[in-house]
């Protein structure tokens, strides 16, 4: 597989973080993230208007940071990659407008990519001692606040969705359980902390049963709500945190490994913000090892939203000659690209690494 030799500048603003990165081939030269989490704390939640404005305020400083950390001048940037789907239109538009302006001013090509394609290709990055690119095809578990998907990654640009959450995402199940238990935001981290001292003694539903690669966490949330109400003062928060974490990670791990086995995948990656959960990493590693599957978990800075992964998703597309023009639009909902007609690409070219 080939990559754009760069240096290329990647921009991501689809959700709560303003991100920019500079890449040369698979190597990440800089990966800057400005989070709006503190703003959410101040306002008690997201205000779309304020979020878009925060992206506007953060965008140019973040791009400048990415360039200076990479020690690459703007005049040497060879291409621009930007997330144009899916996400909040107001937020996406900030990144898209910046990308178009830079592409026009620098007279370099620009390409828009799907946020989840970024997550899927994040394991290909070379960063801070990490260099463990998976082979094609492989299986990917994408888990975050908004996504829970099992994807068969056949080749760059060829993705087959094997299963997904039919209601709440796994990260949402963590966050909402935490809220029901009175734990602070972000819920995933709070639950991981409290679970250390707890025992998983509360029984919680595992969602869909039987022969499926789909997930359901809506009933799980309802069960947590009922349990909190029923137990009242007797509720042991540590034990419930442990039960929540064990149940979610077990369902994710077991189904991911089953999906990998069903398609004969010998390699599995786990990406997205929930991949930061230590228990999920442990459990997946155990089950994968038992099935003879190689597990690749990229470093956390590649798992949470970032622009380096967006750069990778655009890099191979640019390398095979794909481009977007200035009519490129932002889309709130979008399916993952699955174009079956993509050319078959050879084994991974290490020459840029």
């Amino acid at each position, binding site marked *: 597989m080939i990559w754009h030799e760069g240096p290329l500048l990647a921009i991501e603003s689809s959700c709560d973080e303003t991100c920019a990165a500079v890449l040369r081939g698979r190597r990440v030269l800089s990966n800057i993230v400005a989070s709006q989490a503190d703003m959410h704390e101040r306002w008690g*939640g997201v205000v779309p208007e304020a979020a878009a404005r925060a992206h506007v305020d953060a965008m140019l400083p973040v791009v400048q940071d990415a360039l200076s950390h990479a020690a690459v001048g703007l005049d040497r940037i060879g291409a621009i990659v930007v997330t144009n789907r899916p996400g909040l239109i107001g937020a996406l538009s900030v990144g898209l407008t910046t990308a178009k302006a830079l592409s026009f001013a620098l007279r370099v090509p620009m390409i828009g990519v799907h946020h989840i394609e970024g997550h899927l290709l994040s394991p290909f990055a070379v960063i801070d001692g990490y260099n463990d690119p998976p082979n094609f095809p492989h299986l990917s578990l994408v888990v975050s606040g908004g996504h829970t998907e099992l994807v068969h990654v056949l080749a760059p640009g060829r993705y087959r969705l094997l299963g997904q959450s039919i209601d709440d995402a796994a990260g*949402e199940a963590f966050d*909402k359980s935490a809220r029901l238990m009175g734990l602070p935001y972000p819920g995933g981290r709070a639950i991981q902390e409290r679970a250390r001292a707890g025992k998983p003694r509360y029984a919680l539903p595992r969602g869909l049963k039987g022969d499926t690669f789909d997930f359901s966490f809506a009933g799980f949330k309802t069960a947590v709500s009922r349990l909190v109400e029923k137990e009242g003062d007797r509720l042991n928060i540590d034990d419930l945190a442990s039960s929540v974490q064990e149940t979610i990670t077990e369902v994710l791990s077991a189904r991911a490994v089953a999906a990998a086995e069903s398609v004969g995948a010998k390699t599995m990656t786990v990406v997205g913000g929930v991949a930061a959960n230590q228990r999920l990493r442990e459990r997946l590693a155990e089950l994968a090892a038992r099935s003879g599957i190689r597990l690749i978990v990229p470093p956390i800075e590649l798992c949470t939203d970032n622009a380096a992964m967006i750069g990778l998703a655009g890099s191979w597309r640019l390398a095979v000659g794909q481009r977007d023009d200035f009519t490129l639009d932002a889309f709130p909902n979008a399916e993952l690209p699955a174009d079956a007609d993509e050319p078959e690409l050879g084994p991974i070219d290490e020459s840029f690494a």
Partner: protein
Amino acid sequence: MRLLAGEWVKRWPAGTVVLLDGPMGAGKTTFARGVLEALGHVGAVRSPTFNLLHVYDTDPPVLHADLYRLSAASGLGLEDYFDTHLCLIEWPDRLGALPGQVWRVKIEFGEGESQRVVTLLKPGLGAGTSQPAPSVGDPRMEG
């Protein structure tokens, strides 16, 4: 719940705004799934909590919004859909000013584990309460 949604959607043409009220886990998204399935949508109806808005190309087209993560909805652009879509809005207390004519569906936990009390409030009129309806879950669901 989904059967009820399928029955009620018959009164809701494009340009109808329906607010879905109820505590976390009561089944607001399940109700929305019922509406979409009754309109012929095939496929997943995912929680819009993270993305805030999901749009479905049904007849009438449906906007499914969830304001849970918001502290105010200004700048979200919901108003753009009020005239053209059947708008289902979860956690509408974040909305501030409401559009003129709205229906309200209130979903509350009943006495039994799987019981819900669903109340439909017509725009500007009194309420009609349904009988406590056993929730109709996914047949693949455990527990």
